[in-house]
Each structure stands twice: as structure tokens, then as C-alpha cells.
């Protein structure tokens, strides 16, 4: 793609999300979402093969439907409150429709079906932008309307998302689909605590973005999109295997690593609000997630995975430049001792 146009379109994606996050008029928020959607389509279609076109079409259709639902909720809100400012949503119907629309944009169950298919059909870098940056805008709107969200609907969607994200990722060998299901599960964790303490949603989003960014950077560095090609990392760059191990375990939420921090805080916040069965269920279902991360680490880092003999003697081409990887890895694994600093987020 022409570099000038590519830069313009990428800047428009950024601008769309910025407009969503900083507007106080519902119409501008809708415009921001549409601008975001419009500009990310050519980024998803960077290579011109039928897979990317199919993935972009699916993404466009689901997101456009979600925008239409959002617009309907905005108009119902306007009808019942007479004003366009984004404070809280004044009508329960509008609130439910808006929550469903934003859930469609995020990829929460029962609207999660597009996430694995779209993520699989596009290149790794586009998948990275899709799973990290595109989650920021809907989450910011959910944060802003969180006082008026119907708790039953949101919690149902969240718990089902954690379940689907864990269960659906079990049978996958394609790395992009694994990341997609991991994204569904993490979105479930984030929205579960939204009504109780939205700050923790933001914390979880931050740490999730760092970990997903790290994972995708590691995949891009070794150009691997399947578990099989990832398992050859011990031969190409042995150091990456350790980094993959640490980051994956952090994503699974294991204690000394920073991925534990959001889960711990969320479970604590939920128990403070006298719900005990729910966080227990959520923690148990996060084990499903941990299982397929463990399977990846088993084949990548913990074993020298069997391969044919010519794969054991690879040509060493020039190393790809790794953007930002060391700081990301440090941040996605070692932030747990900083948990007491959470008090500044209020």
C-alpha cells in the first residue's frame, strides 16, 4: 500500500478511537465508531487474498450492525431524556440495547462468533491492532455508562464469555485463533467487574493489552502462525522460548507474574460485594484458558519438540527488528509487586 495513504488510514483509526473516547455528544461517539470501522477495513485487507476479504467483510458486517444498534439506543435515550450528553443512559431499554451493541463490538458472548474467524483470516499485525486497539473504544463507552448498565445481562455475558473463551480455545492449533479466544475470555473478566469497580476494568484492559502486544510481537518475530511452527523456536531463537513461556503463563494468570494482578483484584472486588459463587466459577473457568496456554508452552519451551532433521539445521537469516519487545516483556511479567500503587488510579 502507498505509504502515505497507509499512514493516513492508520491515523484515522487512531482519530476514530480518540473521538469516541473524548466526545460528550452521543452522535460524535457514533461518528467516531464509524470512522474507526471504515478506516480499519483496508488495514485488515493488507494482503489481497480471499481469506482477508472474507474476514474484513465479516468484521464490517458485525461492527456495522453493532453501530446501528448503538444508534438506536442513542435515539431511544434521546426520546426519553431529551438531551445528547453522555452521562448515564436514562431508559432501561436503551441501556440493554446499548450494552448489547457494545458487547457485539467487543466480542462478548453471545456475539463472539466473529472474533476467531476474523482474527484467523488477517495477518498477524492486523490481528494485533484488531485485538488490542479496537477494544479501547467500546470499553471506554462501557466505562462511561457503567452506572446504568443492567447487571444481569452484563454478568451473564461476562461469565459466558469466560466459559466460551476457555472452552473454545481448547481445540485450536492456530495461534491467531488461540489469541482470539483468549481475547474473548479476557473481555469477559473485564466486563464482569465493570459495574462494581470500573477502575479494575481499566487495569485489566491495560495489562491485557500489554500481554497481548507481547505475544503478538513474539509471534511476528518468529513469523509463526501455528503451534507447529512456534514449536521450532528452540532452533531459531532459543531465548524467545523462555519469553513465550513467561508471557503465556502471565496471560494464564499465574501468581508471581503481572497477569495475576487483574484477576486477583477482580476476585477481591467481587467478594467484597458478597458474590462468592461467581468469582469461584470465573476462576475455575480461567483454568481452561491456562490449559491451552500450558499446551503452547509445553510444545514450545518445555520440550525440544520433535521435527524433521532438516528443520534442525536452519539458515540464520538476518534478525528481524523487534519493536519494543524487552520493555513489553518486563511489563507483562514483572508488574505484580506494583499492586499497592493501584490506589493512584482512582
Amino acid at each position, binding site marked *: 500500500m502507498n505509504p502515505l*495513504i497507509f499512514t*493516513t*488510514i492508520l491515523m484515522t483509526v487512531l482519530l476514530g478511537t480518540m473521538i469516541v473516547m473524548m466526545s460528550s455528544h452521543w452522535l*460524535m461517539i457514533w*461518528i467516531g465508531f*464509524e470512522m474507526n470501522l*471504515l*478506516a480499519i477495513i483496508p488495514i485488515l485487507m493488507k494482503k489481497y487474498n480471499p481469506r482477508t476479504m472474507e474476514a474484513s467483510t465479516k468484521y464490517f458486517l458485525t461492527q456495522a450492525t453493532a453501530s446501528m444498534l448503538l444508534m438506536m439506543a442513542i435515539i431511544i435515550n434521546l*426520546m426519553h431524556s431529551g438531551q445528547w450528553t453522555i452521562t448515564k443512559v436514562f431508559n432501561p431499554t436503551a441501556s440493554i440495547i446499548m450494552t448489547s451493541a457494545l458487547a457485539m463490538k467487543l466480542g462478548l458472548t453471545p456475539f463472539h462468533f466473529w472474533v476467531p474467524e476474523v482474527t484467523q483470516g488477517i495477518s498477524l499485525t492486523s490481528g494485533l491492532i484488531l485485538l488490542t486497539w479496537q477494544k479501547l473504544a467500546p470499553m471506554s463507552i462501557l466505562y462511561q455508562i457503567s452506572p446504568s448498565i443492567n447487571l444481569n445481562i452484563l454478568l451473564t455475558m461476562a461469565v459466558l464469555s469466560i466459559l466460551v473463551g476457555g472452552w473454545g480455545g481448547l481445540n485450536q492449533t492456530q495461534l491467531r485463533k488461540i489469541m482470539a479466544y483468549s481475547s474473548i475470555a479476557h473481555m469477559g473478566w473485564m466486563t464482569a467487574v465493570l459495574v462494581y469497580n470500573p477502575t479494575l476494568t481499566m487495569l485489566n484492559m491495560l495489562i491485557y493489552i500489554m500481554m497481548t502486544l507481547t505475544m503478538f510481537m513474539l509471534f511476528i518475530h518468529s513469523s509463526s502462525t501455528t503451534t507447529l511452527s512456534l514449536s521450532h523456536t528452540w532452533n531459531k531463537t532459543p531465548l524467545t522460548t523462555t519469553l513465550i513461556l513467561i508471557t503465556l503463563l502471565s496471560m494464564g494468570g499465574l501468581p508471581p507474574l503481572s497477569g495475576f494482578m487483574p484477576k486477583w483484584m477482580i476476585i477481591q472486588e467481587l467478594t467484597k460485594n458478597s458474590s462468592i459463587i461467581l468469582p469461584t466459577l470465573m476462576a475455575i473457568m480461567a483454568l481452561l484458558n491456562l490449559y491451552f496456554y500450558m499446551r503452547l508452552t509445553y510444545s514450545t519451551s518445555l520440550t525440544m519438540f520433535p521435527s524433521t532433521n532438516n528443520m534442525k539445521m536452519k539458515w540464520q537469516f538476518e534478525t528481524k527488528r523487534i519493536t519494543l519487545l524487552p520493555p513489553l516483556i518486563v511489563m507483562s511479567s514483572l508488574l505484580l509487586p506494583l499492586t499497592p500503587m493501584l490506589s493512584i488510579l482512582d
Partner: protein
Amino acid sequence: MMTYIVFILSVIFVVSFVGFSSKPSPIYGGLVLIVSGGVGCGIIMSFGGSFLGLMVFLIYLGGMLVVFGYTTAMATEQYPEVWVSNTTVMGVFLLGLLMEVMLVLYVLKSEEVGVVFKFSGVGDWAIYDTGDSGVFSEEIMGVAALYSYGAWVVIVTGWSLLVGVLVILEVTRGD
């Protein structure tokens, strides 16, 4: 009848939307779009917005739809699909018509129908004399406000249109 003019026009509006949403060939879609544009213009004008209605006719129908018509005429097939030629299209069209008829009956016949929204009769659809601000009409003030207080909206929409063109060119470019 004049108090119900907005209601009648909006019914025709929705019916023509159903007409092109049931996806006949684009030529016929454009035809119905002309009708819906004209009727939409009528709705705006009955609220006093003569400038905006004229904008719809000039820019939308006379500019964008004409270009659309020309490009569709270049790319059309020998036997374009009408509403009655394909079972699916006709089915969708009739379904949309049926839903619109049911909605109209709900609005007209029942006093207070609380399904999801409360349609209290035709109350919301009849025009009353809306806010008076003296000498200037409201819609000219609205247009003026768009270019003064709403400068950010103009910038954002202008940028979206530019990026829309770039995106479409990029997507249809192929290899």
C-alpha cells in the same frame, strides 16, 4: 390532513426504504431512493426547513444519486431483478410492508400501546408550531450553528468523507 402530513410522509418513507432494502437490482433501488429522498425532503419541509429540503434534492438526488445511476447503468445486467421476479426479494418486500402496516395500525388504532415504546396515538407525529425565535427560522439558525459552534463536526465529517474515498480506492484497487 395537514396535521397528519408528517405521519403519512414517514409511512411512505419507510415503505420506500423497504423497497430498496429488499434488494432488487440497483437501478430499481435508485428509483425507490429518489422517491424516498423526495418524501424525506417533504418531511423536513413540513417542519419549516426549506433550505435543508432543497439541499436533499440538489446534492443528494441531483448529485450523488445521478452519479450512482450512471455508474450502475454502466455495470447493469441484461435482465435486472424487479421486486416480483425473485421470490426472496418479493418475500422480503412483503414482509417489510406487513410490518409497516402493523406498526401503522398500532399507532392509529390503539390509544396507549405500551409494547416497548409508548405510542400515545399520533401524538408525537403531528406537527405543532415548534419554538419561535423571532425573526429567523430555526433551520437557518441550525445551519449557521453548524458552521460556527459545530466546526468540529464539520471537520470530523469532512475528514471521514476524505478517508472514505481513500479507503474505497484502497479496497477496490486489488493487487
